[in-house]
């Protein structure tokens, strides 16, 4: 990671914009495309000012068609551009799903390396902002299930810029999911210069010895809150922010688990078939003999994401996370 003395205090969504700006300035093959990304600067302002700066050929308002956006990006990427398509909300990615799983993920493999798809598909995801129906889901597991894709979910402004730059430079396609609940929830120091945060590396947000709590995205905040509250009650949590959910940082997961022997996974996705299940399997496969308690999943429920009046019950909060941790600790 390169360092610089110049930093800015940015929100997470501003860090997205800064990462795009930085890479677009450095590499003219990088282009942004999507619905309302141009003059409007994105419905969350993630591309604000880029159209004015880089023009219509590099910041492209497309017709309203996700399959069209991603499918044409496949051709562009194979032809040598580095497209960064935006899906306006992850809930509206499904028209592009065929392109993503049948082609984006597999072009390298299907052409035996002749063609590749170096693109970053960005999408805001997750709940908690009182949004309308279909705007709040966390379906990252769909993409993690697909070989050939990397799936990144940052939780701080600093990581956002560094991971986004890594993703754009990555020779393989990256699904870059942005936790919109914390788009503007807080600010953090972000270097003005370019720097990278490596894909596939988790980070320890809090060291502890009693229990390992794995999380990512917007759930990092209530998880840290729960850990701090429990510290006062004498429970020492280690909190690991995964940052990339595919490929998972197996070493970080295993070594923390070997230290504590107990694990809780916190995510807002529906419980069944989620990344939490994958983490549970990893500790079973790699560290069974260290295990002192069942792995606990604190997650969303296996229901369609509710309309917003009920979303506070759906999303894990600090109280629910504490309960989960205590169940594991007291086992």
């Amino acid at each position, binding site marked *: 990671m390169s360092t610089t003395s110049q930093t800015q205090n940015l929100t997470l969504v501003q860090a997205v914009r800064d990462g795009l700006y930085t890479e677009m300035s450095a590499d003219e093959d990088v282009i942004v495309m999507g*619905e*309302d990304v*141009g*003059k*409007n*600067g994105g*419905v969350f302002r993630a591309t604000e000012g880029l159209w004015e700066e880089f023009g219509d050929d590099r910041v492209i*308002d*497309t*017709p*309203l*068609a*996700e*399959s*069209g956006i991603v499918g044409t990006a496949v051709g562009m990427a194979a032809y040598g551009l580095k497209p960064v398509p935006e899906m306006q909300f992850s*809930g*509206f990615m*499904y*028209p592009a799903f065929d392109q993503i799983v049948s082609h984006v993920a597999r072009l390298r493999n299907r052409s035996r390396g002749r063609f590749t798809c170096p693109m970053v598909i960005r999408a805001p995801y997750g709940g908690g902002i*009182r*949004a*309308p*129906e*279909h*705007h709040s889901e966390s379906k990252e597991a769909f993409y993690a299930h697909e070989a050939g894709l990397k799936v990144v979910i940052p939780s701080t402004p600093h990581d956002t810029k560094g991971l986004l730059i890594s993703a754009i430079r990555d020779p393989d396609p990256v699904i870059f999911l942005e936790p919109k609940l914390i788009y503007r929830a807080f600010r953090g120091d972000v270097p003005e210069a370019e720097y990278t945060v490596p894909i596939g590396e988790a980070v320890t947000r809090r060291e502890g010895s009693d229990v390992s709590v794995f999380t990512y995205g917007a759930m990092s905040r209530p998880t840290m809150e729960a850990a701090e509250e429990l510290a006062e009650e004498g429970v020492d949590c280690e909190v690991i922010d995964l940052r990339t959910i595919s490929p998972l940082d197996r070493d970080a997961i295993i070594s923390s688990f070997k230290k504590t022997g107990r694990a809780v996974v916190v995510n807002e996705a529906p*419980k*069944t078939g989620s990344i939490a299940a994958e983490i549970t399997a990893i500790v079973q496969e790699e560290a069974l003999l260290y295990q002192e308690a069942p792995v606990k999943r604190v997650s969303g*429920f*296996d*229901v*369609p994401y*509710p*309309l*917003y*009046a*009920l*979303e*506070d*019950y*759906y999303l894990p*909060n*600090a*109280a*629910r996370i504490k*309960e989960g941790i205590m169940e594991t600790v007291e086992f």
Partner: protein
Amino acid sequence: MSVLERDPGDLVQVLDEDGTVVGDEPDLDDATILDIYRDMVLARHFDQRAVSLQRQGRMGTYPPLSGQEGAQIASAHALDEQDWMFPSYREHGAAVVRGLPLKQTLLYWMGHEEGNAVAEDANIFPVAVPIATQLLHATGAAWGASIKGDTDKAFMCYFGDGATSEGDFHEALNFAGVFDTPNVFFCNNNQWAISVPRERQTASRTLAQKAEAYGFEGVQVDGMDPLAVYAVTRKAIEKAKSEEPPAAGRRPTLIEAVQYRFGAHTTADDPTVYRDDEEVQRWKAKDPIPRLENYCRNHGLLDDESVAAVRSEVETRVADAIDAAESEPRPLPGEMFESVYNELPEHLAAQAAEIESLREIYGDEVFFEH
């Protein structure tokens, strides 16, 4: 010759901007014209109240319809009782004409699961937020009716100009053309898909002309002229229910209703970023409500007194609906688990119990503290 048999670029108009008759008036009785007028005023007032509820934090994000009443209300009035309607997310006006209580629309945008419930006797599909997805459902339902030999129903589908860019639009119209389904595809071309102008969606001269490629009629109508909208929609509905066998008479139609969204895309949108006020003002001159009001006054159907009576009637209706929606108790978490499957599976019952036990330990406050 049917009003549908024309060049898709030849805009159908009955009223000019002042409400003067410039085209063939549809066959409409006075009572229906007044109903259309009242429902447009109702939709406009509802819309203004909804936007202010959102501003006051009493409702979530809301998509306003002002400017689009002419298209919504007149087309919905052209439907017969047994017909079906497949809305997008902006058809609050058409929905109320078709029997969905305003309270339901309010509850939906207030984030209550109950807001999605449709009364048994209302042939309305739930709101479709994912763009263009409802088009296929409308084609499928209409196709189903054909298969079952039900020839007395038309299937109306509403969608925007932006929706015509999605693959689902193509697939829905293509199936409809191939299988002669009794559909009316009603495109609310309000010039904008959030910040993206109509010209960015397609290089076609009109949206209506796309029908030609699917093998059926497409017609462009002044969507801010309620009488023109009624005339065109009614003909398309009659065609969908034609006594003649499918390919000969019973066929789908694409209607492009040219209009304008006066306000923001949703309350989360700031249209000043992407369009000029001068453009907005130009379209406001075509406002469907004063246009029909002038027509009615000129024909002795309305005067100051009856206009005021309509106004106060709709104000009361909207106020009552807001009261009713706001007096609904906060929904309970158990509602999340309802209607997921025919029967509640064991693992869901366990999850529902988990949240209940947390509520018992911590109370509801911990869920709402941030």
